[in-house]
């Protein structure tokens, strides 16, 4: 509530400031309301003035030559259908590009308003400096500040632009797609797609044979179970292996570590594929077990749903332990030796020492890391996709979902295999919500967060 009140107060103050600056400002300032940066230019602030002016010029050029065509069709996403003239195809409106560049144009309009506001603020600031009888900063020092006081702007300009273009804009686009009927029957450039409101979300929460509801809940449940086991089994087993290697009297510590670490270096698309083949019904493991007469028919490591889930988790231990071992090794060395000494004098067993010294320390220090591991595992695409591709499928699940599919692999299948972009977008938003909510809950449960609060 407080945030909202603050926000509205800030907006109100801004609008008031725009008005008073205009009322009290001189002609140069007033002219700047129309032509960006003309005030600073006339006051000799060439660098700033040109920067504002070029923003406006670029924007007008962009809108005239490019942006307006897309923005004007944004509300319908295009109406001109693709048609044939003789045997030649004449493409109509491209809904995809209209949506994408329409969004881009809207964002740019907001940005230009922001620049306009900055331009007004600059005028006000310059006027107040001049009125107070001070000198305006030299152009050279304005430029120089980009390497000193304003160095952050120089450093962040490219990264922020990159993230905007290749992360923010695509995410905004996909959120919009969730409200359209963009799927295999409405594919650009041959077919148009358009806005459909909340229809897709309704389908997600429709339970019964035609809806996604039951399948979604099943996939979600397995995703959570997977993330839990994948995170905590790896964590504790990795710690155990690290303790084992660190044990006094064990030689060749470096060798053991290197053996484990090598597995990180081999690309997963090679190693996991081999592991998959090893455990297949007709793979090496079953082959040898049968040859030795231990089993009479192959163990369905990948085809039985329950067993497939267990196998995936076990294989993930194989992947995860080396990382965790490295982390734990580094951290274990940081625990003050005196703590163990005094515990030993008190006659504590190794297990007691682990429980009351090692574990609390590790949990405290690695809390935030565990959280990122957990959310990372919620979206762990490679392990699932390279092993089972989400299979086995089942007649009890909708839209190709398999028994070992995570939300993210399901989303991938919808995008690439089924080209059902609208539902993929809906699932994507759901994944975001799941990750955000779990992060929030777990974050507040973290010992490091709670203790910090306790000390304050």
């Amino acid at each position, binding site marked *: 509530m407080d945030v909202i009140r603050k926000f509205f107060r800030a907006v109100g103050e801004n609008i008031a400031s725009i008005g008073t600056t205009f009322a009290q400002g001189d002609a140069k300032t007033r002219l700047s309301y129309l032509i960006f940066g003309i005030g600073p230019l006339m006051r000799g602030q060439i660098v700033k003035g040109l920067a504002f002016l070029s923003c406006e010029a670029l924007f007008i050029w962009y809108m005239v030559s490019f942006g307006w065509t897309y923005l004007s069709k944004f509300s319908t996403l295009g109406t001109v259908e693709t048609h044939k003239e*003789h*045997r030649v195809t004449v493409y109509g409106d491209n809904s995809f590009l209209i949506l994408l560049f329409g969004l881009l144009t809207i964002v740019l309009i907001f940005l230009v308003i922001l620049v306009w506001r900055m331009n007004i603020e600059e005028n006000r600031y310059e006027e107040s400096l001049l009125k107070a009888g001070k000198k305006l900063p030299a152009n050279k020092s304005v430029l120089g500040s980009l390497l000193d006081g304003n160095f952050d702007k120089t450093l962040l300009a490219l990264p922020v632009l990159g993230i905007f273009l290749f992360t923010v804009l695509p995410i905004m686009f996909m959120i919009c797609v969730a409200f359209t009927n963009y799927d295999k029957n409405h594919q650009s450039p*041959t077919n148009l797609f358009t806005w459909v409101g909340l229809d897709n979300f309704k389908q997600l929460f429709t339970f019964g044979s035609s809806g996604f509801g039951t399948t979604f809940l099943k996939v979600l449940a397995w995703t959570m179970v997977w993330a839990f086991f994948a995170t905590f089994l790896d964590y504790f087993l990795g710690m155990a292996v690290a303790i084992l290697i660190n044990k006094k009297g064990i030689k060749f510590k470096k060798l053991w570590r290197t053996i484990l670490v090598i597995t990180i270096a081999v690309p997963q698309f090679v190693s996991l594929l081999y592991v998959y083949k090893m455990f297949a019904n007709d*793979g090496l493991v079953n082959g040898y077990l049968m040859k030795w007469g231990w089993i009479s028919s192959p163990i*369905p490591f990948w085809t039985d749903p329950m067993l497939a889930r267990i196998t995936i988790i076990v294989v993930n231990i194989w992947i995860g332990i080396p990382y965790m071992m490295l982390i734990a090794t580094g951290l274990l060395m940081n625990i003050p030796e005196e703590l163990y000494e005094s515990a030993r004098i008190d006659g504590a067993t190794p297990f007691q020492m682990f429980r009351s010294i090692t574990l609390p320390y590790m949990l405290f220090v690695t809390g935030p890391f565990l959280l990122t591991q957990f959310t990372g595992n919620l979206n762990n695409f490679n392990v699932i996709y390279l092993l089972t591709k989400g299979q086995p499928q*089942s*007649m009890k699940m909708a839209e190709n979902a398999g028994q070992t599919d995570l939300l993210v692999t399901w989303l991938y299948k919808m995008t690439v295999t089924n080209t059902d972009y609208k539902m993929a977008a809906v699932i994507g938003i759901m994944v975001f919500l799941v990750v955000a909510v779990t992060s929030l809950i777990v974050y507040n449960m973290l010992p490091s967060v709670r203790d910090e609060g306790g000390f304050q």
Partner: protein
Amino acid sequence: MKKKLAVVLMAGALAAAMGMSAYADEIKVWVADNVVGFTEEQIEAFKEANPDFAGYDYLVEPVGEGDAAGNMITDVEAGADIFVFAQDQIARLVSAGALEEVAPDNEEAVKTENDAGAVAAATVGDILYAYPLTSDNGYFLYYDKSVISDPSTLEGILAACEEAGKNFYMEINSGWYQTAFFFGTGAELTYETDDDGNFTACNTSYASDAGLLALREIVELKASPSFQNGSAVGEATNCAAIVDGTWDSGAAQDLFGDNYACAKLPTFEGSDGKQYQMSGFGGFKLLGVKPQEDEDKLMACDALAAWLSSGDVQLARFDAVGWGPSNLEAQKSDAIQADAALSALAEQLQYTIPQGQYPGEYWTLATSLGDSVISGELTVDSSDDELMDALTKFQDTCISYAE
């Protein structure tokens, strides 16, 4: 227009990269990797015979039939101008606007020179959309003579495999191989489409006694310790028999060596005590042309597609890589009549149903049905009601695709 945006956004930093977009005078061809060389040779011959079209740059890329349709649909613009695809993708391609109708000049020739099933496969609604390339997309049995003496019944094959401790491979979680059982017992599943590739009606009787017999047989096959799910010779271990197609004949010869043998699919004894012949799909590989914005280029593409699918080239392709032709003249040649794999396929084709149009979702749905068996949701112990539930759901979902 697009370029202007690029300049605004990238401030010219990447201007060099922009020159790389495809030119109008380039014709891209997608074929499977093992026929890339063959196709390039044929294009050279085509250019010599048609100097009018020699001005284009022809670019052959190895994109297999499996990937071609998916890639075309993702982005028609960046897709190939001419591409080979398996016929089950045709309706999807038509509705995504990735297939141009066969040129009126070529239509008559395609219809008369190729076998009727192939022409039907290339037709959506009443319009001919593609050039048939092969008639060999069917399956039959490869087996090891030293293990299996009589490949005429499924029970006999499984018994021989079990005795020898060897595996029998069939991909029961594929909508393509599954139909061997369902169509064998007389269950039906066909779709009707309109001219734009939209599905308008579904004729199915899977949820019937016939369907139940078939599913029960699949479940029983799965229960055999010798059964393995799969249909690629190269992936099979310890294999004595495999249901597979002609494209694997080379690999099968490598695998079985002197004991290599082929046969039509076996019969099986249903739970009602009657014998049923395994059926299945007879399928086709097709050559498609993408809709074009340029009349001359379209003519060149049409001419090249007609050339690559002509009888002589089909025969030459058989010699090079063993693909069985759809051209009637080519089918009569001695070399093809003498080929063991193609003979077995020809024999099997009497029992199969020419594969019509199926929606893309059918294939993944069929995988779900097969996986339900493989994963043990449906077993030999399942009651008729449980099996029927699965079939009813399957049938309802199939029908829903045509709404």
